[in-house]
C-alpha cells in the first residue's frame, strides 16, 4: 500500500461546501417532517451522512477534533428525550406519549405551529445520528 498521503484537495474543498448543504437539508427534512415528507429518521440519517462525508475527506482524528462528541451519549440522550416527552404527559394527567400542539405568534416567524411531537422526533433524530455514527466510527477504528 502506498504509505504516502495523496492530495485530496478537491475532495476536501468540495466537502467543506457540500457538507453544510447536506446538513441544512437534513435539518429541513427534520423540521418539515410533520407536514411534508421527512422527519426524525431520515433527517438523522442524512445528518450522519454529512459527517460520513467529512470522515471520508479527512480522517477519523480530524473529525473527532471538529466534533468532539461521543455518539453513544448522543443516542442515549435521544432515547432520554423521547421517553421524557412521553412521560411529560403524566404532568397533565394524560396517558403516556399523549401529544399536543398549538399555534403561536413568534417574533420573526409569525404564526407558527409548535407541537410536542417535534420533541419526540428530536429524540428519534438524535438516536439515529448517534447510532449510525457509533457504528461507523467503531468499525472504522477497528484494525
Amino acid at each position: 500500500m502506498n504509505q504516502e498521503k495523496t492530495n485530496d484537495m478537491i475532495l476536501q474543498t468540495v466537502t467543506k461546501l457540500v457538507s453544510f448543504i447536506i446538513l441544512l437539508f437534513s435539518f429541513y427534512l427534520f423540521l418539515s417532517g410533520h407536514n411534508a415528507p421527512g422527519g426524525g429518521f431520515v433527517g438523522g440519517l442524512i445528518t450522519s451522512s454529512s459527517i460520513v462525508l467529512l470522515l471520508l475527506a479527512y480522517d477519523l482524528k480530524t473529525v473527532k477534533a471538529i466534533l468532539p462528541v461521543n455518539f453513544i451519549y448522543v443516542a442515549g440522550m435521544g432515547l432520554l428525550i423521547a421517553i421524557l416527552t412521553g412521560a411529560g404527559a403524566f404532568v397533565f394527567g394524560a396517558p403516556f406519549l399523549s401529544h399536543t400542539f398549538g399555534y403561536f405568534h413568534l417574533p420573526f416567524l409569525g404564526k407558527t405551529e409548535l407541537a410536542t411531537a417535534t420533541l419526540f422526533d428530536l429524540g428519534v433524530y438524535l438516536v439515529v445520528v448517534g447510532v449510525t455514527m457509533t457504528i461507523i466510527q467503531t468499525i472504522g477504528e477497528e484494525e
Partner: protein
Amino acid sequence: MQLLHFAILSPFLFAFFIPFFAKYAKKIHTGWFVLVLPILLFIYFIRMLSITMAGETVRSVLEWIPSLGINFTVYIDGLGLLFALLITGIGALVVLYSIFYLSKEKEQLGPFYVYLLMFMGAMLGVVLVDNVMVLYMFWELTSLSSFLLIGYWYKREKSRYGATKSLLITVFGGLCMLGGFILLYIITDSFSIREMINQVHLIASHDFFIPAMILILLGAFTKSAQFPFYIWLPDAMEAPTPVSAYLHSATMVKAGIYVIARFSPVFAFSSEWFWIVSLTGIITMVWGSFHAVKQTDLKAILAFSTVSQLGMVVSMLGAGAAALHYDNTEYYTVATMAAIFHLINHATFKGSLFMAAGIIDHETGTRDIRRLGGLMAIMPITFTISLIGTFSMAGLPPFNGFLSKEMFFTSMLRVTHVDLFNVQTWGVLFPVLAWIGSVFTFIYSMKLLFQTFRGTYQPDKLEKKAHEAPIGMLISPVILVAFAVSLFFFPNILSYSVIEPAVSSIYPTLLDSHEKFHVHISQWHGFTAEVFMTLGIIVIGTAGYLTLSKWKGIYQLFSEKLTLNRLYDKLTIGMEKGSYQVTKRYMTGFLRDYLLYVFAAFIILMGSALVFKGGFSFSTEGTAKIGVYEIILSVVMISATAATVFAKSRLTAIISLGVVGYTLALFFVIFRAPDLALTQLVIETISVALFLLCFYHLPKLRWKKKTRTFRLNNFIISLGVGIIVTLLGIASSSQRTKDSIASFFTKHSHDLGGGDNVVNVILVDFRGFDTMFEITVLTIAALGIYGMIKTKVNEEGKSVEPREDK
C-alpha cells in the same frame, strides 16, 4: 387434624429429629430412639381392631386442596388396618434387628433411619388413605424412599444399579396408576375410593373401564414384582438386609397387593380382572419358584421366593373375584381369605428368613451358599429360625405356611369350576401350575436350609470365623417364627379379628347389612385332594432336591440372552443409544439444517392449512390497474434477484442486492410513499456499504471464488416457501372482510395530530409507542456492535478491557 392423621404423618415428623439424635447422641445407637415410634403406632393400631371386628369403619377428613376434591381422608377398615399392623409390627422388629445389624461406628445411621421412617410413613399413608391422589402421593414416596434405601451403600456400583432399576420400574408403574386414577376420576367425578365403589355401575358401563383397570393393575404389578416386572426385586437385594426384610418381603411389595385388593370392589365383577390377575399371579408363582432354585446367593433365593409367593397371593386374589360372578359366595371367597392369610404368613416367615440370611452374612462374611455349609452346630438358633421359616415357606406342617398352602390348593381347585370364557378346558391349568410351583418352592426351601446348615464346614472359604449371632439380632426373627408356629396351632385368633374384616372390605357388596364372612381355618380336612397334593409335593420335591445336581443342567437351556434382565438392560441402554442417535441425526450443528426444518415446517403447516381448511381464494376485485412503470420495475427487480441468486462472485451478489433495494425505493416512489422511499434509499446505501466491508474482510486463506453448488433440497424448500408466501398473499388480499382503519388517520391527522404528513404523525403521535421501542432497538444494536468490536475475550476466557481511544 386428628390423631389418625398425626399417626400417619408421625414418621415423617419424627424423621426430622433423627439427624439430631445421630449427631448429638452418638453413644447410643440411633435405632433405639427410632424403635419407640413403630411400637407406639403398633399399639395404637391394635386398639382399633375392636372397631373393625365389629364391622365398623373410621373415616376422618383433613382438607388439603378442597377445591380439587383432594383431601387427606383417612379411612380405616379391616384391610387397611391389617396392613397398618404389618407395617408397624414388622417395622418395629426390623428396627430392633437393624440396631444390631448396622454398626454405629461404620455406617451413616442418620440417613438410614430417616429413609426408613419416610418409608414407614409413606406405607401407612398408602394403606390408610381413601383419596386416590393422596394414595398416589404416598405411593411415589414409597418408591422414592425405597430407591434411597436400596442405594444406601451408594459407593457400590451394584447398589446404584439396583436402585435405579427399581425406581425406573416402580415409577413407571406408579405413573400408569396415576393415569388409571385420573380415568376413574373422569368417570366418577370423585377421588374417593368409597365414592368409586358406590358408583360401580357407572364405571362398569364406561368406555374407560378397561384402560383404567389395566393402568391400575400395571401399577400394582410393578410394585408387587409380578411377571414380567419382578426383575427389579432380585437386584434390590443390594440393600442392607433389614431393608430387604422390611421392604422387599413384608411391606412395599405388598403395596401392589393392597391396591389389587382395594380396587377389587371396583373392577372385580369383570371377567377381564379375574383372568388378568389370576393368570399373572400363577405365572409369576411358577416362574419365580423355578428361577429361585438356580440361585446361589441366599438373598437372591429369597428374592425369587418373594416373587413367587407374591404371585401366589395375587393369583388367589384373582381367583377370589369369581365369588362376584356366582351365587356360591362361600365357595370362592376361600381364595380371598387364603390370600389374606398367606399375606400375613409370608410376612412372618419371609421376614425371619431374611433376618436369618442377614445373620449368616454378618457372622460369616458371605451369602454364597456354595461357600457355606455345616453351620448347624455353630449357629443353632439361626438354624432353628431358618428351619421353621423354610418349612413354613415350603408349606409343611406344623407351620402356618402349610395352612395357607392348603387353602391355596383349595381355591385353585375351585377355580376349575368357574366357567368364565370356558374355563373348563383351561381352568385345569391353575391347580397344575400351582402344584408345579409348589414343588419348586419345596426344592429351593430345602436347598436354602440344607446347603447352608448341613454338609461340611469350610472355614477357609469364609472371611470370618463363624459364630452365633448376638442375642439382640436374634430377638426379631425369633418373635416372627414364634408367630409362624403359633399361627399353625391357633390360626383362628387371626380369622375372626383380622381376616374376616379384611375380606369383608375387599367384597363389601357381597354381604347383606349385618352378615359377616365366616372364616374357619382348620388344620385337618380329612383325606382331600389338597392333602394328597401336599404329599405329592413332599415326595417329588425331596426326590427333586436329592437329584438336583443331575437335572440342574436344564437351567443351562435358558441362555442368559433370553432373560428379562437382559431385555431390561438392552432396553435401557438401547433407548439411551437410540435417543442419542436420533438427537445426533437431527441436531447436526449446521445452521442450514435447522433452517431446513423451520422452512419445511412452515411449508407443511401453512400449506396444509391452505389446502385442508380451504384458506385459498382468488379474486381480482378491488385491485389496481397495472401500469407500465410497475412492469418495468418488476422486470428490473426480478432480473436483479436472479442475478443475486446465480451470481458467480460475491461482489456481484452484493451489487445486485443493492439494485433490488434501490428498485424497491423506486417502487415506493411510484406507490406514493415518499418517506419510505427516502429512508429506503439511505438505508440501502448504508447496508450495501456494510456488505462491502464484510466482503473486504473475508479471510484470505480460505477465500475462493466458488460458485454455489445446486442442492435439490434447498431448491424445493425455497420454491415451496416462495409459493406458499405468494399464495398466502393472494389469499389474504382476496378476502378482506373489513375496511382498513386508514381513513381515520387521514381524516384526523391534522386536527388531532397537528400535522399533514400522515406517516410521520402516525409514527410520532398515533403510534409513537412503537417508534420509541424501535429507537431503543437501534441503540441496542449500536451498543452491541460497539461491545463486540471493542471488548474482546482472550484465550483464557477473560475479557480484555476496551481499548482506550487514541
